[in-house]
C-alpha cells in the first residue's frame, strides 16, 4: 500500500515539477478562465438581467472550461515527449499511474479555480462572505469527480484524431451532474440560505467523487495496456 501511494506520488510530483518549471499551462489556463468570465459578463442585457442572476452559472461554466483545458494538456505533454511509454515501462502499477496523473490534474484544476474565484468575486460584485469558502469547497469537490473521469478520457482521446475536440465532447456530459449541483448550491450559498438546505448537494458531489475515482482506478489499465 505504501509503495502504491509513493509510486502515485512520484508520478504526481513529476507532473507538478514539470509544470512549476515553466508555469506556462497554469498561467494560460488561468488567463483563459478570466477571459471566459469577461465574455460571460457580456452574454446578458444589463438592463434586464442582473449580474447576480448569472453569477453562479458564469462561475461554473468558467471552471468547467478551464478544467477541460487543463486535462487536455495532461497526456498530450506525455505523448509529445515519449513520457507515457517510459511511465508504462516503469515497474509501477497502472493504478498508481492513474492516481498520480489524477492528483496532478486535480492540483492543476484547483490552482486555476483558486485564481478564477477572486476574479469572479471582483467582476460579479460578490460580497466577500464566508460563503466563498463553501463555494471553493464545491469547486474542489466537483473537480475531484470530473477530473477522475477526465483523466481516463484524456488518456484515450490523446491517441485519437481531433484529440482537443474529442475530450470536451465526451467529458462535458459527465460534467453536467456536478455542474448542475454546483450551480444550485452556489446560488443558495450566495443567497445566504441555511446550511441544512445545502448539505445534501455536498453529499451528492462526494458520492460522485467516490464512484468515479473507483471506476477510474478500475478502467484506466484498459486505456494504456496494448
Amino acid at each position, binding site marked *: 500500500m505504501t509503495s502504491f501511494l509513493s509510486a502515485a506520488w512520484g508520478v504526481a510530483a513529476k507532473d507538478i515539477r514539470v509544470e512549476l518549471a515553466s508555469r506556462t499551462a497554469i498561467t494560460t489556463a488561468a488567463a483563459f478562465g478570466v477571459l471566459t468570465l469577461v465574455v460571460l459578463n457580456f452574454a446578458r442585457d444589463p438592463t434586464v438581467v442582473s449580474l447576480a442572476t448569472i453569477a453562479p452559472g458564469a462561475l461554473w461554466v468558467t471552471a468547467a472550461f478551464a478544467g477541460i483545458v487543463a486535462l487536455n494538456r495532461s497526456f498530450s505533454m506525455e505523448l509529445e515527449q515519449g513520457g507515457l511509454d517510459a511511465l508504462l515501462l516503469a515497474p509501477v502499477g497502472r493504478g498508481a499511474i492513474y492516481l498520480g496523473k489524477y492528483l496532478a490534474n486535480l492540483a492543476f484544476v484547483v490552482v486555476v479555480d483558486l485564481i478564477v474565484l477572486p476574479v469572479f468575486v471582483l467582476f460579479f460584485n460578490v460580497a466577500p462572505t464566508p460563503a466563498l469558502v463553501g463555494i471553493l469547497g464545491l469547486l474542489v469537490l466537483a473537480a475531484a469527480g470530473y477530473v477522475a473521469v477526465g483523466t481516463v478520457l484524456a488518456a484515450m482521446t490523446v491517441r485519437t484524431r481531433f484529440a482537443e475536440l474529442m475530450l470536451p465532447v465526451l467529458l462535458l456530459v459527465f460534467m453536467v451532474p456536478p455542474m448542475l*449541483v454546483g450551480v444550485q448550491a452556489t446560488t443558495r450559498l450566495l443567497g445566504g440560505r441555511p446550511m441544512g438546505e445545502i448539505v445534501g448537494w455536498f453529499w451528492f458531489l462526494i458520492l460522485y467523487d467516490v464512484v468515479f475515482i473507483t471506476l477510474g482506478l478500475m478502467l484506466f489499465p484498459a486505456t494504456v495496456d496494448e
Partner: protein
Amino acid sequence: MTNSGASAVTRGGLWISGLAMAGIAGVYWLALLGTPTERWQGLSQKILYIHAPAAWAALLAFGLVGVASAAYLFLRDIRLDTFAEASAEVGLAFSAIMLTTGPLWGRPVWGSWWEWEPRLTLTLLLVLLFVGYRALRNALDFPEDRARYSAVVGVMALVLVPFVHLSVYLFRTIHPQPVLLKPSAPSMPWEMLRTLLTSIGAFTLLYIGFVTARYGIGRRRQQEAG
C-alpha cells in the same frame, strides 16, 4: 463465422425487422381505429404509442451497450464490441424517433416544443453521450484500441445514468408520470394499455432485427478487413 455466415445473420436480422415493421403497421391501425381517443389531449395522445416504445427501445439499446462493454473488458471477445457498436447505432436511430415525436406532442399539450424536464434532459444527454461514443470510435484506426476505448466509455456511461437522473430530478417535472411501470396498477384503460403493450413488443422486435442486421454487417466488415 464465415463471410457468408455474417451475411446470413444480416439477412436474418432484416427478416425480423420486416416482421417488426408489419407489427408497427398493425400498431398504427390499432391505435387509430381500435383505441378510444383520450378525453383531454385528443388525437395528439396517439403519439404515445410510438413515442414511449421508441424511448424504451433506445434506452434498452444504450443499456445493452453498457452491459456488452463491461463484458468485453472481462472477456476481450471482439464480438461483444461489434454488438456494442451495433446497439449504439440502433439506439441513436430510436432516439431520433423519440426526440422528434416528443416535441410534436409537447407543443399542443405542454404549449412548448421543449422543456428542461428531467426525463427529456436525461435522454438528451444520453443521446449526446452516444454521439460522442460514435465520434470516438470513428477517430480510432485500430480495432483493438477502438474496442477497448469504447468499452471504457460504455461502462462509464452506464454508471453516469443514475447521477444524471438524480441531479436533473431535482428540478420539478412536468413529464407525464409513469402509467405502466409503477407500484400500483396501470392507470390507463385496457384498450389503450393493449395498444401500448403491442407497440412496445413491436419496437422491441424491431430493435432485435436492426441490431442483428447491423451486427452481421459489422462482422462482415471485420472479416473483409482481415
